[in-house]
């Protein structure tokens, strides 16, 4: 069967329509993601506006260096992802696999560093709940801040894990030669998702790590 026939699902008229539907679908999905994280951002905005001091204190508990490194790692992974999409559209299979692998690696690195941060917090008894051990000023509202810290970065990390899973699948598909210029929608759409997750982090970094850096 020619590639164009393999690529077209039965209910679409042509490939253009199919591509259109796939990308529009992904963008619409990303809008739902914006609103999903949006609930957390809204809560964050509320509490930061009424407890500015406590959010400053809380922010000082975050490791800026690790956060900054992770930002760079994630932005780099976005670059490799963009290059992977390009390779897929041009049909450069070897490059596609290489860039996907690079993205996967960077994504895992990000998760590793995140895990390190979490375990630090855990050892320092900075996890909200019964064993919470922070005794500085505003300790309850600092706990509130840390709820946001864990909630937002945790949800973000969950998205990363899903993204890593998607990358694995794509690598297998690419390996088997199922990704061709006409059948590259999946890579393109996964790229959109990956970049979105990157954007979320771009906002989380200053909002969680940098609040009180000047003090």
């Amino acid at each position, binding site marked *: 069967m020619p590639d164009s026939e393999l690529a077209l699902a039965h209910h679409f008229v042509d490939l253009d329509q199919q591509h259109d539907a796939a990308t529009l679908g992904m963008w619409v999905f990303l*809008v739902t993601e*914006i*609103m999903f994280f949006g609930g957390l*951002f809204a809560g964050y905005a509320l509490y930061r*506006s009424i407890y500015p001091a406590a959010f400053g204190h809380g922010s000082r508990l975050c490791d800026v260096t690790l956060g900054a490194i992770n930002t760079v790692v994630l*932005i780099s992974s976005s670059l490799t992802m*963009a290059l992977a999409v390009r390779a897929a*559209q041009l049909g450069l299979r070897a490059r596609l696999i290489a860039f996907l692998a690079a993205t996967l690696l960077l994504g895992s690195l990000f998760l590793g560093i995140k895990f390190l941060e979490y375990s630090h917090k855990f050892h320092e008894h900075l996890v909200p709940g019964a064993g919470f051990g922070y005794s500085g000023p505003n300790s309850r509202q600092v706990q509130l801040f840390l709820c946001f810290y864990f909630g937002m970065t945790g949800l973000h990390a969950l998205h990363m894990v899903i993204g890593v899973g998607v990358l694995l699948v794509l690598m297998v598909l690419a390996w088997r030669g199922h990704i061709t210029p006409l059948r590259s929608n999946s890579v393109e759409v996964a790229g959109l998702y990956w970049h979105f997750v990157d954007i979320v982090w*771009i906002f989380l970094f200053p909002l969680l790590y940098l*609040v009180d850096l000047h003090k």
Partner: protein
Amino acid sequence: MTRHIVSPKVYLLVFAVLIALTAATTQVARFDFGPLNVVAALTIAAIKATLVVLFFMHLIHSSHRTKVVLAAGVLWLIILISLLLSDVLTRGWLPAPKAW
């Protein structure tokens, strides 16, 4: 089919700017501008996000429709946050009565 293939140079340039802005936001945060701290942090983040959206996510080459979809998402987030804050920030406005 109108799929735009972007040169890797563009991607690398955008990447460089993003890294520079990351450095910038960390540096800016070392100074205290009072209430402008958040504004500065969010502005830089917004610029970075815009770059990612425009170039990595090819919004710049996408249809009008895609742009509207994304704009709706952003606008709705702003609605959520601003109407929420319209409650929280104005709660203290009503002066308490003189009773004592």
